């Protein structure tokens, strides 16, 4: 699969932040128990004028800023999210129009809990490989929902990343990809409902850990690699603890995980989670570096990728668009009452 890969990438994280401490105070919880248990210290919050469409557009435009690609050469836009602004009316149409890629464009919105964005990467890879499109843009973005007072409220955040997939001027080859999927109801949101429900601890062993472990092992078998062959490892990060634990179980070191681990400081960006982690790694990656990525989506499934950075990376003007670290540093804190107003929590489900 060496002729298909990432041509460019872009990220977007809203500027607003709320501290776990403020959420804990609002609900009468001990902040240290929360931050110690979840490993999340603050999270990004969308402002009232930001949603998955605006985050996706900003990320896609950032990806295009780093290239000279004519948007008319983009043949596909797939947006993965579980918080699309419309239930019916694709986010991808808004993105396609805003980046100037319409009208000769394949578009669909994806939903697979937190792994819809990586599923979009796989679709774009297949379309490029089949020569049905020259370039495809895969986006993972969310303004994730959490019921007031639910444990999810400490982590559910907002952000997204876009990856241009193609076979020309590839900065990172995608050597192999594979998926592992079963019917495991660990987390869901019913049609028409505002907030998701979840199985508490059931989201761990039979869900997150089983799917990522199995898929990661399958990928390394396919690619004939071992954990020590990788410079970086990125995992889906529903909290600050799970990705570190699954990495250790697979034999990766904390050092390999560090650059792609964003959840403790921006929260769980759901469909943006592993994709923002990968964007953060690409911000510093050098030619020859090997990157392991495993996403996870409740329901449940995992997509894994074996990626090698090419010499073309040296020519990519990464500074033309914001680095993930710059997006993280640019922040403004809000309190819990402002958060409830901005996240529309004052109205009934």
């Amino acid at each position: 699969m060496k002729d298909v890969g990432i041509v460019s990438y872009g990220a977007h994280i809203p500027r607003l932040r709320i501290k776990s401490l403020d959420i804990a105070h609002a609900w009468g919880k001990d902040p240290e128990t929360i931050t110690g248990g979840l490993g999340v210290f603050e999270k990004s919050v969308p402002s009232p004028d930001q949603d998955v469409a605006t985050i996706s557009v900003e990320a896609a435009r950032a990806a295009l800023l780093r290239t000279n690609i004519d948007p008319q050469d983009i043949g596909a836009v797939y947006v993965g999210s579980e918080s699309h602004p419309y239930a019916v009316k694709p986010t991808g149409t808004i993105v396609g129009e805003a980046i100037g890629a319409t009208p000769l464009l394949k578009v669909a919105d994806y939903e697979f809990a937190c792994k819809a964005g990586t599923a979009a990467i796989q679709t774009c890879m297949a379309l490029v490989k089949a020569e049905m499109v020259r370039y495809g843009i895969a986006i993972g973005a969310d303004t994730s929902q959490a019921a007031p007072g639910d444990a999810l409220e400490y982590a559910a955040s907002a952000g997204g990343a876009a990856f241009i997939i193609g076979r020309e001027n590839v900065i990172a080859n995608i050597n192999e990809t594979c998926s592992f999927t079963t019917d495991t109801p660990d987390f869901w949101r019913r049609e028409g409902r505002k907030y998701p429900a979840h199985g508490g601890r059931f989201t761990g062993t039979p869900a997150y850990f089983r799917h990522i472990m199995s898929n990661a092992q399958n990928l390394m078998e396919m690619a004939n690699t071992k954990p020590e062959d990788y410079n970086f490892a990125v995992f889906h990060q529903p909290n600050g603890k799970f990705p570190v634990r699954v990495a250790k179980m697979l034999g990766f070191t904390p050092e390999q995980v560090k650059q792609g681990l964003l959840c403790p400081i921006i929260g769980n960006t759901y469909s943006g989670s592993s994709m923002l982690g990968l964007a953060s790694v690409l911000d510093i990656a050098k030619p020859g570096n090997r990157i392991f990525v495993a996403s996870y989506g409740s329901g449940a499934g995992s997509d894994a990728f074996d990626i090698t950075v090419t010499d073309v990376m040296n020519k990519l003007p990464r500074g033309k668009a914001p680095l993930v670290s710059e997006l993280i540093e640019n922040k403004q804190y809000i309190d819990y009452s402002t958060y409830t107003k901005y996240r529309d929590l004052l109205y009934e489900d």
Partner: protein
Amino acid sequence: MTDGAVPRFWREIPQRYNLIGNQCGSCNKVYFPPRESCPYCRRKSMGKMKNLKLKGQGEVLTYTIIYNAPEHFEGQTPYAMAIIKLDEGPKVTAQIVDCDLDKIKIGMRVQSTFRKIQEDGYIGAIYYGYKFKSVEVK
């Protein structure tokens, strides 16, 4: 916006999403929103008005802070509205976002960003378009 606004919004998508203006082929003046003809060159400009995508960069000419917002904008107060002179010449009125209100200054360099402008309640269409942020904010 009320029902019936969708077709009008849809017609303006190129301007709202991508700041597509136009330029007079006779005197090179740039217009945003685009005009059918140049008011200076009039007949000479007919058929010579060419679409031009504005870069979305400019500076704040003047601004005000809104504390009493119109319907649908109450949740965002206080927020800043500014008249921005784009580098290509046209002036636009838009909201300044992602900036502490006391940091906004006349002459501040700004760039466009893509945001939700308005929505028709919980069941209507969502309208997107340009707002501006400081160029210092990436």
